[in-house]
C-alpha cells in the first residue's frame, strides 16, 4: 500500500466518512453552542448551600421584612417575607434589586478624605477617627456647632446620633430628611394637638379614599397596602391628577389637580357638616371650622375650589357617610412630604367621620420608647424642618454649623430647590458622610466614612410611616461586608468615648437588645424575621380641628394657572427609579421603557389638550422652569394626565453614583419651589407651578 498523495486523500475521505458515523461532529456542535451561552462575564448562580435568611429593607422607602436567598453565604436574590406584617410576602422593585446594589460600582470601599485639589485620598479608620475627634473636640459646648441630617427615621441609630449632638449642645440641630412622616407629625401635633404618631388601619376599613397619596406606589407602607387591598375587603377610591399606581388599581379614579386635593378634602368636610353630620367624639373648634367651611366651601364654591362638579363631590361624601368604616388617606403625590395642608385637611376629614382611634381608621400610636436617656425623642426630631433650616442657611439667616454629619441621606440631591440648598450645605466648613455609595452629598463631603449596606449590618425599624399599629423589626447581617466599612452607630459610640462624653451603652447591639426588652419583644424571634406588634393606642384628648392660621395657608395655596406659570407640577415617585436616598439600580434601569428614558433624556407627561394649548407636540425637547430652577426633558403625550398638569418622575438626574444612574434624565428636585408656611410650621412645595418652553 503506497501512501502517496492519492492515498492521503483517500485516508482523509475515509476519515470524513468515519467521523460522520461517530457522535463527534454533532456533539461538538452542540457543546460549542452551549459553550457560547456561558461566557465568563455572564453572572452564574454559584453552587453551594442554599439558605433563606430574614432581613429588613432600608433603602429610603417603605421598610419591611424580606427574605434573602444565599448560596454559601453569598446573597443571590431578595423576596418578600410572608411572615412580616408590612410585607405579607410582597416586594417592591427597588428592594428586588437590592442584592445587586451590594456590588454597585458606586460603593465607597474605604474611608476617604478630601484633598485640597478636590480628589479623595484613602485613609485608615484609625486616622479617620483621629480627624473626626480633632474636629469635634473644640466644638463641645458650642451650641448649634454640629448639625446632623439623618435619612433613617425608624432606626435606633437616631438615639446615638441624638445623644452625641445632645452632649455637644447641638440637640436642636438634628434633622430628618423631608418625609411624609415628618410633615404629618408636625401637622398632627402642632395643629391638631394629636398624641404620639399616626397609623392607618387599612385592614379594618371598608372604604378607603386616597387623595393624591399614591398608596400602592411609594406612599407609606405601599407593599402592605397592596396586599391588604388585594384581599378585597375594602373599596378604594382615588383622587389625583394622573394615572399612577393607585389610580390604576383603585375601584374609581376622580381626576383632580394636585393643589386641589386639600380643597377636595375640605369640600367633603363641608358637605358632611351641611348634611347635619357631627363627629361622635368630642373635638375642639368645630364651630369655627364649620363657619369657615360654610363661608369658603359652600355648595356654590365647591366646583370652583375643586375643579369637580358638585354632584361628583356629593357622591364621594355620600359614599363616605354610607360606609361603616371609611378611612381617608391624604398626602403628597411624591410621598416625600411637602404638603402639610392636604395632610391637615385629610386628618380633619377623618376626625369629622369619627375615625380617630377607631377600627379601620387612624390610630394614635404611642411614642416609641428610647433606651438612651440623653437622646431626644424621635417624634420631636421629626418636627424639625430641614428645608426651612437650609433655606435660612442659604439666605444667611440661620446659624451656620461648623460641622455637618450626614447619615443615610443624600440632601444635596433630594432637597427641594436642590441647587441652592445644596450650595448652602456645601458652605458648611466640614462635612462628614456616612454613606455606602458615592452619592451627590458624599462627593461634596470632606470625609466619607462608609457604613455597611443594610444587608451587611445589624439594624432595626420602629413603625414605618403608614403602619396600622406599632411594630418593631430587627435584622442582622446576611452578607459579609463588601468593603472596608464600620457600622456608624458603633463608630459614633467610639467617638463619644474618645471625646470623654457619656455613653450609656457599649454597642449598638446592646442598644437594640435593650429596646426589644423595653417593648417586650423577643429578640430571637425578631432576628428570625417576625415583627413585634402592639395595637395599643395613645389616649387622644379632643382634637383641635380649627386653627386660624390654616385660613392663611389655604389662601396662599396656589389657586390656578397664571400666565407666567401655567402648569401644576405633579411629582411621580416610582420605586423602580430609586428613592431620595438610593439611585436607580441597574435592574430598575432595564425596566424603563424607551418612551420613559432614552438618549435624549427622561420623559415628562402632558395631556394632548394642554400640549396643544402650549404649542407643543409629542417628542419635543422641553425645559420646565419654576421660580427656583429648570430641568430639561422630552415631552410625552399622555391622556391619563389631567389638563393643566405636567407629571415629572423623580429619581433621575443624578450627577454622581454609578454609570447606571449618572446622567440619566434631569432632577425634579431642582424645580421644586419650597416656601415656609408659618401657619403649618412646615415647608411646603407641593403647589409648585412651572412653565414649559420648547428647546
Amino acid at each position, binding site marked *: *500500500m*503506497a*501512501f502517496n498523495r*492519492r*492515498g*492521503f486523500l*483517500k*485516508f*482523509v*475521505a*475515509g*476519515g*470524513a*466518512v*468515519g*467521523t460522520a*458515523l*461517530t*457522535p*463527534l461532529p454533532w*456533539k461538538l456542535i452542540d*457543546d*460549542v453552542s*452551549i*459553550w457560547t*451561552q*456561558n461566557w465568563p462575564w455572564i453572572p*452564574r*448562580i454559584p*453552587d*453551594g*448551600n442554599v439558605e433563606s435568611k430574614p432581613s429588613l429593607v432600608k433603602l429610603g422607602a417603605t421598610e419591611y421584612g424580606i427574605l434573602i436567598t444565599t448560596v*454559601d453565604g453569598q446573597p443571590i436574590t431578595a423576596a418578600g417575607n410572608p411572615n412580616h406584617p408590612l410585607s405579607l410576602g410582597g416586594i417592591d422593585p427597588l428592594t428586588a434589586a437590592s442584592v445587586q446594589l451590594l456590588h454597585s460600582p458606586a460603593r465607597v470601599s474605604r474611608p476617604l478624605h478630601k484633598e485640597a485639589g478636590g480628589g479623595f485620598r484613602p485613609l485608615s479608620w484609625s486616622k479617620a477617627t483621629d480627624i473626626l475627634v480633632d474636629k469635634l473636640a473644640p466644638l463641645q459646648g458650642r451650641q448649634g456647632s454640629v448639625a446632623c441630617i439623618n435619612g433613617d427615621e425608624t432606626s435606633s441609630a437616631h438615639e446615638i446620633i441624638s445623644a452625641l449632638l445632645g452632649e455637644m449642645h447641638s440637640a436642636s440641630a438634628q434633622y430628618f430628611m423631608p418625609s411624609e412622616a415628618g410633615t404629618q407629625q408636625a401637622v398632627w401635633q402642632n395643629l391638631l394637638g394629636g398624641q404620639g404618631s399616626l397609623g392607618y388601619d387599612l385592614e379594618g376599613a371598608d372604604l378607603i379614599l386616597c387623595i393624591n397619596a399614591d398608596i400602592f406606589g411609594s406612599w407609606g407602607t405601599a407593599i402592605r397596602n397592596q396586599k391588604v387591598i388585594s384581599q378585597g375587603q375594602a373599596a378604594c377610591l382615588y383622587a389625583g391628577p394622573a394615572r399612577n399606581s393607585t389610580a390604576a388599581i383603585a375601584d374609581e379614579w376622580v381626576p383632580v389637580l394636585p393643589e386641589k386635593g386639600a380643597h377636595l378634602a375640605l369640600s367633603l368636610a363641608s358637605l358632611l357638616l351641611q348634611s347635619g353630620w357631627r363627629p361622635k367624639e368630642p373635638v375642639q373648634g368645630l364651630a369655627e371650622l364649620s363657619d369657615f367651611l360654610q363661608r369658603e366651601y359652600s355648595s356654590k364654591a365647591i366646583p370652583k375650589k375643586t375643579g369637580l362638579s358638585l354632584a361628583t363631590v356629593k357622591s364621594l361624601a355620600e359614599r363616605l357617610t354610607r360606609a361603616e368604616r371609611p378611612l381617608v388617606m391624604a398626602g403628597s403625590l411624591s410621598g416625600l412630604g411637602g404638603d402639610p395642608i392636604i395632610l391637615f385637611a385629610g386628618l380633619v376629614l377623618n376626625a369629622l367621620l369619627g375615625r380617630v382611634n377607631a377600627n379601620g381608621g387612624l390610630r394614635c400610636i404611642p411614642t416609641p420608647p428610647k433606651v438612651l436617656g440623653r437622646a431626644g425623642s424621635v417624634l420631636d426630631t421629626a418636627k424639625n424642618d430641614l428645608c426651612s433650616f437650609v433655606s435660612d442657611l442659604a439666605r444667611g439667616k440661620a446659624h451656620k454649623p461648623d460641622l455637618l454629619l450626614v447619615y443615610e441621606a443624600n440632601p444635596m440631591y433630594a432637597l427641594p430647590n436642590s441647587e441652592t440648598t445644596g450650595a448652602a450645605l456645601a458652605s458648611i466648613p466640614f462635612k462628614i458622610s456616612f454613606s455606602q455609595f458615592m452619592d451627590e452629598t458624599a462627593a461634596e463631603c470632606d470625609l466619607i466614612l462608609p457604613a455597611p449596606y443594610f444587608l451587611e449590618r445589624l439594624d432595626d425599624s420602629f413603625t414605618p410611616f403608614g403602619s396600622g399599629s406599632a411594630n418593631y423589626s430587627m435584622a442582622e447581617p446576611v452578607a459579609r461586608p463588601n468593603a472596608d466599612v464600620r457600622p456608624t452607630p458603633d463608630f459614633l459610640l467610639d467617638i463619644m468615648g474618645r471625646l470623654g462624653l457619656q455613653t450609656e451603652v457599649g454597642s449598638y447591639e446592646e442598644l437594640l437588645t435593650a429596646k426589644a426588652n423595653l417593648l417586650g419583644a423577643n429578640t430571637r424571634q425578631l432576628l428570625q424575621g417576625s415583627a413585634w406588634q402592639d395595637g395599643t393606642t395613645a389616649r387622644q384628648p379632643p382634637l383641635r380641628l380649627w386653627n386660624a392660621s390654616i385660613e392663611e395657608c389655604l389662601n396662599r395655596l396656589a389657586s390656578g394657572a397664571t400666565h407666567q406659570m401655567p402648569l401644576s407640577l405633579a411629582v411621580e415617585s416610582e420605586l423602580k427609579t430609586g428613592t431620595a436616598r438610593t439611585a436607580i439600580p441597574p435592574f430598575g434601569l432595564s425596566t424603563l421603557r424607551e418612551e420613559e428614558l432614552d438618549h435624549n433624556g427622561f420623559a415628562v407627561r402632558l395631556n394632548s389638550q394642554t400640549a396643544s394649548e402650549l404649542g407643543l407636540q409629542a417628542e419635543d425637547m422641553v425645559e420646565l422652569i419654576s421660580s427656583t430652577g429648570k430641568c430639561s426633558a422630552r415631552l410625552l403625550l399622555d391622556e391619563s394626565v389631567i389638563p393643566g398638569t405636567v407629571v415629572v418622575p423623580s429619581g433621575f438626574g443624578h450627577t454622581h453614583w454609578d454609570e447606571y444612574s449618572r446622567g440619566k434624565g434631569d432632577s425634579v428636585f431642582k424645580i421644586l419651589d419650597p416656601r415656609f408656611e408659618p401657619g403649618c410650621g412646615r415647608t411646603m412645595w407641593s403647589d409648585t407651578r412651572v412653565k414649559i418652553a420648547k428647546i
Partner: protein
Amino acid sequence: MAKKKKGGIMPFLVGIAAALILGWWIFPHVLFSEHNQPFTFGHRSHLEQDLECTYCHHYREDGSFDGVPGLESCVSADCHAEIIAGTPAEKTFVNEYVKPGKEVPWKVYQKQPDNVYFSHIAHREYDCVRCHPDLEQTDSLPAVSRNKLTGYSRWTMTMDECERCHAQNETSNACYVCHK
C-alpha cells in the same frame, strides 16, 4: 491491476477505522474529565439501616427539593456526630467536615443550568432513577464526568429529553414551562 485497486481502498478504510476509534473512544475520553467525590459513600449500607430515601433527599416546606443532603441531615439523630462505623470515609467525613461544621462539597451528577427551571415536586410521580443514576445498591459513588467545553456533567438532562417526555405525556412544551 486488481492489486492496485485493492491497495487503493485501504487508506479509505483505515481513515474510516481511525475516525471511528477517535469519535467513539478517544473523543469521549478527551471531552470529559473525571472528578471524584470528596470521600466515598455507600447508599446500600444506609438503606440496610432501614433509612428511607426521603430521610436524606426530601422536599422543603415550600415544595422545593432539598437535593443533596446537608450536614444537618447526617448529624441529626446522633448518626455521625461522632465516628460510629470507623471506615476511612466516615473518619474523613467526621474529622474534616462534621467537627469544623463545614458542608461537604459534593459534586452533583445532574444539575440543570441557571436558565432552566425544574421542579422536582411536579415530577414526583416518576421514579427517581428515570432521570438519575441508580445508586441504591452501590457501596461507593462513581466519579462525576464533566464536559470540558460546557462544564455540564455527563448526566445532565438535555432539552430534547425533556421535550420528548413532555410530548409523550401530553404536557406543554412551551418555552416558558422551563425557561422563566
